[in-house]
């Protein structure tokens, strides 16, 4: 492209390039600032919600009081100890426990401390939840669940993405054909979420046909050889993965197909056709290239969406992933775990958005960064 530029305009191009670079930097720093503000506000909101604006403190205090009184009563049951001494012991233990959990400082101050910790990725320790290895560190709990989620979601979502983009390209070529119409007819089936298909799959393949397991990730006890383990894992993954795929397959196919159709009805595509280019050429140069930014955006957002897992699908299939961990954490009022997963998601999202912005600002000639406003 650049080689086609006549040499006499070179000078002018250089000065606009410097100008563009300056504008780009200004735009990027503004974006970074905005993203930071976004993350801070979003994480603080999550902290406030996850603590019910401080009400979780009251719940925890009552919990500590109850368990400590029971503990003291059990400890002093057979000992000659006066009621006052016992009460003093109770109060001391309660104060100690509250101090341990940080309940002695007011919630507002603590909420900012939480925010600071979260932003510096100091995820802290869970209140009740324990990882399978016995660690209370939120990092350990999350890292332990992440592979399961990534395996399930990654397989399903990547398969879904690539199959639907590829098939959609083929469909957009044979617009109006039987398969095209079939996809249009079937696309309303995507109104139902994955767990809904999951229930039907369990009913058919696990309950009636008895060929696949009801749920879980491996058999109990797990097979000892690596190959056996992988096969077992695969067997457990078929149903949840296919329900994730099926529930989004037709709508995603339809959306991509429509998207490609809109681009292939542009005038320049007709022009290319008139020139007699092969359909393969037209596809790669005139349809895929202008749609590439959208495809990349979608792919990037898909990758970070893997992080949150699929709470309900994981619950229905008893898949030990992150989604179910978050659900359990909420059930335990375990704020550090909830905030921990949120902050990582927020960072991933912000980072992706920023990178995409940056890439587009450089790549896409149509995105003139703030240029028009001057």
């Amino acid at each position, binding site marked *: 492209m650049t080689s086609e530029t006549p040499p006499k305009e070179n000078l002018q191009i250089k000065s606009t390039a410097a100008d563009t670079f300056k504008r780009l930097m200004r735009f990027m720093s503004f974006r970074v600032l905005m993203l930071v503000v976004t993350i801070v506000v979003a994480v603080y909101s999550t902290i406030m*919600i996850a603590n019910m604006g401080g009400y979780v403190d009251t719940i925890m205090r009552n919990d500590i009081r109850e368990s400590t009184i029971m503990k003291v009563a059990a400890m002093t049951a057979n000992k000659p100890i006066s009621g006052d001494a016992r009460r003093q012991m109770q109060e001391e233990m309660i104060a100690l426990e509250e101090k341990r959990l940080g309940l002695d400082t007011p919630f507002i101050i603590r909420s900012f401390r939480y925010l600071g910790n979260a932003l510096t990725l100091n995820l802290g320790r869970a209140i009740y939840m324990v990882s399978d290895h016995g660690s209370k560190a939120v990092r350990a709990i999350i890292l332990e669940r992440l592979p399961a989620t990534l395996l399930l979601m990654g397989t399903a979502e990547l398969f879904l993405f690539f199959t639907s983009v590829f098939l959609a390209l083929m469909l957009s070529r044979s617009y109006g054909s039987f398969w095209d119409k079939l996809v249009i007819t079937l696309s309303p089936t995507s*109104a139902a979420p994955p767990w809904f298909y999951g229930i039907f799959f369990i009913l058919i393949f696990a309950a009636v046909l008895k060929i696949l397991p009801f749920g879980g990730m491996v058999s109990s006890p797990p097979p000892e050889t690596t190959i056996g383990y992988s096969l077992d894992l695969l067997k457990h993954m078929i149903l949840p993965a296919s329900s994730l795929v099926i529930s989004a397959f037709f709508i995603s196919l339809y959306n991509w197909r429509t998207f490609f159709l809109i681009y292939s009805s542009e005038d320049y595509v007709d022009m290319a056709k008139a020139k007699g280019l092969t359909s393969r050429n037209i596809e790669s140069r005139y349809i895929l290239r202008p749609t590439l930014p959208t495809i990349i955006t979608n792919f990037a957002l898909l990758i970070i969406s893997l992080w949150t897992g699929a709470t309900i699908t994981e619950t229905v299939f008893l898949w030990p992933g992150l989604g179910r961990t978050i659900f359990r954490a909420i059930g335990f009022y375990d704020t550090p775990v909830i905030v921990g*997963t949120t902050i990582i998601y927020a960072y991933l999202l912000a980072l992706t958005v920023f990178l995409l912005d940056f890439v587009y600002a450089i790549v896409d000639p149509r995105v003139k960064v703030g240029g028009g406003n001057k």
Partner: protein
Amino acid sequence: MNNLKNTFREISRYPSAIFGGIIVLLLVALAIFAMIKIPYSEAIRLWRGGEEVWYQNPKNVPPTWYNYFSKTKLPESFAVKASEDGKFSKTVTPNADGTALIDYEYEFDFEADDFPQEMFFYFDADYVSKSPFVTVTLFRPDGSDIKIGDFGVSHKFTYRFSQDERLVKRVDRLMHREIINPVEGLFAVLESQPSQPLKGTYKLVMHATTFEKDSDLDIEFVSHGQVSGLFGTDHARRDLTIPMLWGAPIALAFGLLAALGTSVLSMIIAAIGAWFGGWLDELIQRITEINLVLPFLAILIMIGTFYSRSIWVILGVTIALSIFTGAIKTNRAIFLQVKESTYIEAARAYGATDWRIIFKYLIPRIIPLLIPALVSAVPGYVFLEASLAVLGLGDPVLPTWGKIINDAETYNALYKGFYYWILEPAVLLMFTGLGFAMLGFSLDRIFNPKLRGM
């Protein structure tokens, strides 16, 4: 008017629009029927009721129409009360000394290929100090008769067939082997092994003697079969008809209100932002970005766990979190385009106020795009409500489809083979989702000029 007619003509060219529309109409009809047939308070009372409301139903049995598809016909559940049912014949023979003989006779047909689970008598006796005495005998189609028992009846007296040791022994002696459930023996061919059901007309004869002048006795005969009602029953003997019917208005209300609230509010906010521009627009954009980072489902679960599971609270939070999403960005882009049109300029020239322009000139332009989006959004919200219920965060009071699925999941319905329990609400949910999705989908193709003919 003509415009509307054209729209309808256009819609009628899409078979999926007609199909979806019919499903939606049927659902609305079902919802109205449910609300008229079982008033709200009655539905809640029944749904929250325990044994005292549902004692007539067996636990976890499929609906009666299960028999149409099954080779072995399962016995139906029934309950008859002497004072209310004409098939009970009652003869009273008073004696001179104040005592009286009350004879009840009840004939019923037994044509099933399997046996009832359990049978009960519920006596309701009216006396002051001397309780009546009852002897019950069952006359079977093969001519034999079995004495079920004789007992004194207190004011409220329940007789369970399987709990009567003497009856169990009597049945064992007749069958010449040990039978766990005496009801099975009562309806089996004598000495058959395994038990063969003896089909035909059975007759229950009860002789009651009362010992006081105004003493009277009422009997309710309850048989827990293996099928019951139009939709079967759940683990708490509740008839699933109630949540199946009432799930419709609740699902529709939640879906429609959430879709309407979300799309209308996000449209108005986008219009305001696009029109005024400046810091207001900037603020709306920032809120949208923050909202995209917030974990939607996790927040809903937190609200459900910490604050309230009331469907109205969840609805409010759902709407609040769904306003500032991608839709607001799409709407804003369209409004920014419309803002530059000449008719807006004309309106400004004649001195129209900002609000007049927003509500009379900007928003009406986008409504054709709003309608398909609104209809297409309904299934998402219907399933969201069901999803929360499946997670155990459904409204604790209301009978909904999601709640049935949650109950079924909790009690391992699929594992135990109670398929009807999950399939019934799932099929209704599926129809709701499909109906709205098909309608919205076709509307989108009709109203959205970009998609025309694609």
